[in-house]
């Protein structure tokens, strides 16, 4: 058997047996049909496997609704598959200890920290330009843009076609762009829009000494008018 025929036979075998769940796409396989899991089973079930590749998706919700935990879990799941993740953080809010608590190999996470001392108006355009560079490189499977610290009027100052342009850029990429915000901002035509609501903190016992924060409850809805709903709990990291 010739070498190309042998390779094709081996790839057929790998494809049929699914020897490795998170293996890279094989020849002839449309990688866009394989979504990127978020690492939270309830959310993956809601989305039919995870966030779609080549799309701008968003996670939005109020404070303490678990949106950052969900986005970090998504980045950690990508890194766990051997890919690279980027976290664009114009407000400089990421805690590396929280990222490490997800089990993520931090050496594979590119973190871009915004300058918090200058005018806030300059931070967002610079972050959007950085996201465009990261997407254009094609190196990162997960790119997260955290704009949750910015008010809607700050986001409204960005040029109108910003999100359309980013969606067009990510459309040619095997990765996904996730927008982390306080309220709905934008999503691609096939991208997911996850709305989170806080389910309240979970405590380890009755008030008093020795009580610790056990985790945060969250309710998530997706689809048109939030038709599909589920709930999950994020355990506390310390």
């Amino acid at each position, binding site marked *: 058997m010739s070498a190309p025929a042998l390779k094709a036979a081996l790839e057929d075998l790998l494809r049929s047996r699914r020897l490795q769940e998170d293996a890279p796409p094989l020849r002839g396989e449309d990688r866009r049909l394989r979504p990127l899991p978020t690492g939270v089973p309830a959310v993956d079930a809601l989305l039919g496997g995870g966030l779609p590749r080549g799309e701008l998706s968003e996670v939005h919700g109020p*404070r*303490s609704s678990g949106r950052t935990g969900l986005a970090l879990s998504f980045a950690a799941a990508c*890194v*766990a*598959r051997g890919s*690279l993740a980027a976290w664009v953080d114009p407000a400089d*809010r*990421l805690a590396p200890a929280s990222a490490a608590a997800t089990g993520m190999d931090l050496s594979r996470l590119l973190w871009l920290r915004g300058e918090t001392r200058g005018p806030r108006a300059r931070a967002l355009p610079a972050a959007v330009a950085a996201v465009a560079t990261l997407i254009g490189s094609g190196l990162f499977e997960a790119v997260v843009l955290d704009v949750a610290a910015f008010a809607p009027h700050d986001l409204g100052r960005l040029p109108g076609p910003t999100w359309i342009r980013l969606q067009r850029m990510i459309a040619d990429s095997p990765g996904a762009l996730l927008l982390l915000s306080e309220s709905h901002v934008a999503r691609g035509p096939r991208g997911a829009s996850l709305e989170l609501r806080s389910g309240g*903190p979970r405590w380890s016992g009755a008030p008093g000494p020795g009580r610790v924060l056990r985790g945060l409850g969250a309710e998530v809805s997706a689809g048109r008018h939030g038709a599909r709903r589920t709930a999950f709990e994020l355990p506390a990291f310390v």
Partner: protein
Amino acid sequence: MYGCLHSPRPLPSTGVLLDVAREFTPRVEGLGATVLLDLHGLGRVWESPAVLGQGLLDAGQGRGLDLQAALAWTRMAALLAARGLAGLTLVPPGREGEVLAPLPLELLGLPPERQELFRRWGLQSLGDLAALPAVGLAERLGPEGARLRRMARGEDEQPLVATPRPESFECTLELEWPVDGLEPLSFLLARVLEPLCAGLRARGRRAAALALDLVLVDRRSYRRVLEPAAPSADPRTWRTLLLLDLEAHPPDEAIAKVTVRAEATPARVVQFSLLDPAQPSPERLAETLARLHEWTAAGRAGAPALVDTHRPGAFVMSSFSPGAPASVRAAAAPRVALRVFRPPLPAHVALRDGEPAFVSAAGIRGAVAERAGPWRASGDWWDVAWSREEWDVSLGPAGSYRIFRDRIKDAWFVEGEMD
């Protein structure tokens, strides 16, 4: 014919003797304070060996070196004669043993125990050793004995092993008229980078750093040095990196001369796997990080790394250079994230029975619905001491936060938001 130059005095640098020798032939072998020259084929250039030998000495004299030179038909005879005899020595063919015979045995560079043995045998000179029977020496000292005897007779053991020239990856372009602006410079950079990178690739090297030296029209020099995250020998990558750097730091005058120098490093071997995701190309990664120059230059881009300390929130930013993914990968575990405030937000906290009852800070305000704490921690008393009392508090719909009281400043802060 072989030649040999030897300096009986310490040299200012080892390379200076090689430079003298390379004026005559490219095939030279450096042996510390001695250098061997392969002079085959020079008979048509120099009228006699004596003139060539004198030329060697004169070249050394021109550089301020007082040298001894020897020319012989074996490299060993030339080497020993140059080390043992002052001035210029010409060893006629077939008379190597005769010329070398009076020279001391120390010229062979013997180890002390062997030298002591030969002294006890009564051997003083190379001639004494050469006169011994080869079979007897081999019986007593093994192959080493026969080898030393051949050396003492001026016979060669091995061919000349040429010392390679120090690698220099440099390319210069002098311009007929000065150029101003990045667009014309882009074409010129391609002209110097392509041969430079071709040279690097031909030797299996990559450039870890690249220095760009520009001579401006007012004869000032302007230098930029780039050290990307990964070495590269791709001219397009280097051109992009240089142009991006010059965009941020343009020279203030037109350019008259362009020189690029590469710091070479061995090419990285990347082994791929059938079942792992494709790893990023080092060139593309370097180019991407260069495009994020605004972030990387200020140290605001990289891979975070935790620090081995109990100080809350301690981390360092390291350069982003991901290696191969770990073969055994831990599954990602979702966790509550802390969205920290840098620096922590000063807060006013009202206490009831020693516990936080109301928190007020910039953008955060609410009665504490539930709480856990206090968790006391302190450290670094030998340096910049810190001591704090942490609480996890829920302000109901206003969110959950980690707050702490700085026990040294006796002030409250909001460290971050649980999310």
